[in-house]
């Protein structure tokens, strides 16, 4: 048997609905016989009547409603149809959910699922990676699972957490990633993972870029380089310890992210390593992100816009020569 990243997300939600009567799913087209734009909730409305609810195209109100329900003891899971549309819910997520515990001492246990990242032909408005925006604001936990196993266990964990969780699931990984079976338990939330061991250079990455980084490491292995790949798993909190430990071993750091280049997760990792671990570095740390333009539609442009195994390997090679 094999299970995809997307199926893992569906299975996690089925389990959550089964095990916890406080859980309900709220989003556009998630209900009925349709089961979501990507089918992440397929069949769930039938299996759990009244708990998988279609909503109007009202991202602000969808999240606002989830916040209100969470304050009254529910554990809502919001599905944004695409991460890109969560821009319309920024106010509720950042200013309402994100400030609530700090202001009132009452946490807001909502999970917002963001189908994130680029796929061929999706263009500027169905491809975005928004994790850095959410991580920038206080009060939120931001998950970016890169494997089928993490997609499953981290979503279950997200709903268990009393604070708002932004769960960035990558659309490119939906069908591309497969696992044999789903685990009972994953690593604790907030813990990064060494996805591949190596001693020459550390690549820190997450979500789909973690998979690209692994492919780059494979390519470089054929050239005799041992690349260590760190999978951040959650970008907030950021597991700085694992990153430091890895850089201490390799002395070289490359951070790879699919989001736009100004600021963001890769910049944050590098800022932390240079400010507190400058002595660990043998060369100036580097970062690779998407380009500073909207995300292009055409596959030729799109594949040149975002980092991929090839240009990650090229960047790593250059850094290895430093």
């Amino acid at each position, binding site marked *: 048997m094999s299970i995809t990243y997307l199926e893992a997300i569906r299975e996690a939600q089925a389990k959550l609905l089964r095990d916890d009567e406080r859980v309900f799913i709220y989003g556009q087209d998630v209900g009925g016989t349709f089961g979501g734009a990507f089918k992440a909730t397929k069949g769930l409305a039938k299996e759990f009547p009244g708990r998988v609810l279609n909503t109007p195209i009202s991202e602000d109100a969808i999240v606002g409603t989830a916040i209100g329900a969470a304050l009254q003891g529910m554990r809502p899971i919001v599905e944004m149809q695409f991460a890109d549309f969560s821009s319309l819910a920024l106010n509720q997520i950042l200013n309402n959910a994100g400030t609530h515990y700090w202001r009132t*001492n009452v946490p807001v246990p909502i999970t917002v699922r963001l189908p994130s990242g680029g796929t061929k032909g999706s263009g500027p408005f169905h491809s975005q990676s928004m994790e850095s925006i959410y991580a920038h604001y206080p009060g939120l936990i931001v998950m970016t699972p890169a494997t089928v196993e993490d997609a499953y266990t981290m979503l279950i964990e997200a709903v268990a957490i009393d604070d708002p969780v932004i769960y960035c699931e990558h659309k490119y990984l939906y069908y591309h990633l497969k696992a044999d079976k789903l685990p009972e338990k994953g690593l604790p939330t907030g813990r990064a993972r060494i996805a591949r061991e190596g001693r020459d250079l550390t690549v820190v990455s997450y979500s789909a870029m973690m998979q690209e980084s692994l492919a780059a490491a494979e390519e470089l292995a054929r050239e005799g380089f041992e690349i260590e790949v760190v999978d951040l798993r959650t970008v907030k909190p950021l597991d700085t310890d694992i990153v430091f430990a890895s850089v201490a071993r390799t002395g070289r750091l490359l951070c790879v992210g699919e989001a736009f280049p100004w600021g963001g997760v890769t910049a944050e990792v590098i800022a932390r390593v240079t400010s507190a671990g400058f002595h660990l570095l043998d060369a100036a740390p580097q970062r690779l992100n998407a380009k500073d333009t909207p995300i292009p539609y055409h596959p030729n442009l799109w594949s040149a816009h975002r980092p991929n195994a090839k240009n990650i390997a090229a960047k790593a090679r250059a850094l290895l020569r430093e």
Partner: protein
Amino acid sequence: MLQTAQRTLKSKRKKLAAPHERFLEAFHWMLLARTLEEKLVSLYRGGMITGGVYIGKGQEAVSVACGLFLQKGDIFAPLIRDQAGRSAFGEPLLDVTRTYLGSRLGPMRGRDGNIHRGHPRKNELAMISHLGAMISVTVGALMAKRFRGEKDFIGLSCIGEGGMQSGSFHEGMNIAAVEQVPLVVVATNNHYAYSTPNDREFACHDLVDRAIGYGFEGYSLDGTDLGACLDVIGGAVKRARAGRPPQLIVASVLRLSGHGEHDDASYVPEEIKRKPFARDCLKVAEQTIIDLNLADADTLAQWRKDAAAQVDEAIATAQKEPAPEGDREEWCAISTRELADSFE
């Protein structure tokens, strides 16, 4: 609460829409709110309050009716000018003075101020500044109650005519109707959003007409008339409780203060102050009390004194309390402490 209220009527010139006890109870909260806010204004002028002071002068009648009919288990989402409603709902005066004066012991502990306060665990939602955002939050709270099988609950969410023009408000109203939750939305048109008059806020004939478009039942209200406020808002609460569609009330008043106390409202022309909706609801209610002989002048004076005493006590208490301190604060924005991003 109103020991001195006289039940016997000497004059029947005017028919009250609400029972007298309720009218007097409402008046009591209005008076308390007015007294408190006047005191807050003088503290502000004396430099004793950091940040803004936003008062509900002229809107107490609408506001009090919003709080008065709510029962245990109901959800209340007050906004900027709802001191009277908050008090009627059960918010202690100390919550207000502690928040305005920055006491560490207040509900917001110095982390937020003035009107941005609430007690979510006691069903008084803590507004964020962003207008319109609290409508859908109220909807969600009501859905949760329905999910759990609770019975006999409603929610009441307040808004100004300015906030009514936000996308968030429209989305919230629509989703409320889609979810058919027992919600009352009370919109107070005080004719200004900060300095912007109605004609630059909206172009529809009457805001209440929107009710039908949202799938609400809509009612207009003279917000200067306490009896009418109790009648109309009380009626809406009753209908929501009885399972009618969501209810929209649009009340008309004039904001009898600046937007905040930093604002002299010099942009409000004199002629609008002579309109019927510019009447001071507290004075109107007081006149009704006198006309109907519900209380005499001495009793009213005594009530004012009582209110002032309560307010003074709440202020004195909060003033004696410790302020928060930056180096003793717990700088953690999430409840799951072990997941805090603690790199410095």
